[in-house]
């Protein structure tokens, strides 16, 4: 009987080889015997997968489907800084009132002679846009930074207030404020 060591290039069956080598020699490694045992360690792989999962969960940005309008916070001005020759800018007042349960049931009125009530917020936007001074419209009535005061009645719904604010900002006016409800300003 020949052993695997006596004929190094021979390929003996595994059972026969293991039986003889275990009897006389130290067992050969599988690689030396020409076998490649590929095994996947699932435990470490699952660990890494969960770690990656945690990483992406923590770093992901969960959007809420919401947007925001910035409101100017009134800043206190120090005494003596006003320019004595600067003419005070008269704010453009827009009065709105809810007149029904529907989304379009709102009365919109601009406090300025010559500008009649506007039936919709789209019309309010068009009117404000038409009267804004810009390169294509140098004879407009208002500069972009002309203050606009939105004055809702106490019973005006919040959605109508927001629509009016949106119309002013959409017309690219930069100084828009929400005023105390029902103010006589």
């Amino acid at each position, binding site marked *: 009987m020949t052993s695997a060591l006596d004929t190094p290039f021979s390929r003996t069956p595994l059972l026969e080889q293991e039986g003889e080598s275990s009897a006389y020699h130290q067992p050969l490694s599988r690689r030396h015997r020409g076998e490649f045992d590929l095994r996947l360690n699932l435990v470490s792989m699952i660990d890494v997968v969960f770690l990656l999962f945690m990483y992406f969960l923590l770093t992901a940005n969960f959007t809420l489907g919401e947007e925001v309008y910035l409101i100017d*916070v009134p800043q206190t001005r120090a005494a003596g800084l006003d320019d004595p020759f600067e003419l005070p800018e008269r704010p453009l007042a827009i009065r709105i009132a809810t007149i029904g349960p529907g989304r379009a049931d709102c009365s919109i009125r601009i406090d300025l002679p010559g500008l009649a009530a506007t039936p919709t917020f789209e019309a309010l936007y068009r009117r404000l846009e038409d009267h804004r001074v810009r390169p294509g419209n140098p004879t407009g009535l208002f500069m972009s930074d002309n203050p606009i005061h939105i004055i809702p009645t106490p019973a005006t719904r919040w959605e109508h207030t927001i629509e009016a604010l949106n119309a002013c900002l959409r017309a690219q006016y930069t100084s828009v404020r929400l005023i105390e409800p029902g103010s006589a300003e």
Partner: protein
Amino acid sequence: MNLTPMIDMTFLLIVFFILTSQISNVEVAEEIELPEPERSVAAEPDEEHRLVINLIPDASDRRRLSSMRVGFRTFTADAPGRSRLRAELLAAAQSDPDLKIDIRADRQALYSEVYPVMSLASSSGAKRIDLVVSATLPGRGDEEVER
């Protein structure tokens, strides 16, 4: 297969989801229906930390407020509740000079109910106040309207 590390990670995930779901419920009150203006020009909120004031509508009359919620704290919509909210906002503004406040109000709420809270937030010393609206869905309101 060694199940021990897998069970460890599963429990960690469960704890994570429990904690985060609680926080999201506190920050954003689900019972508020935000306004959804047509052709909105509102901006997407930035990633910075902000204090969210939820104006919870009354269940029987959505035009009225039932309470105001900031994080885990709930304030009644009456004068004592407003003064407690004012103290809370003042303390928050003192601890964070760059405080930003989000106001979430229901679309049906009356302006007379929302304005006092806006006024409180404005006088608290917050650096910035944002009004939260529902985001316009992509493609909605993009069609041109005849002049």
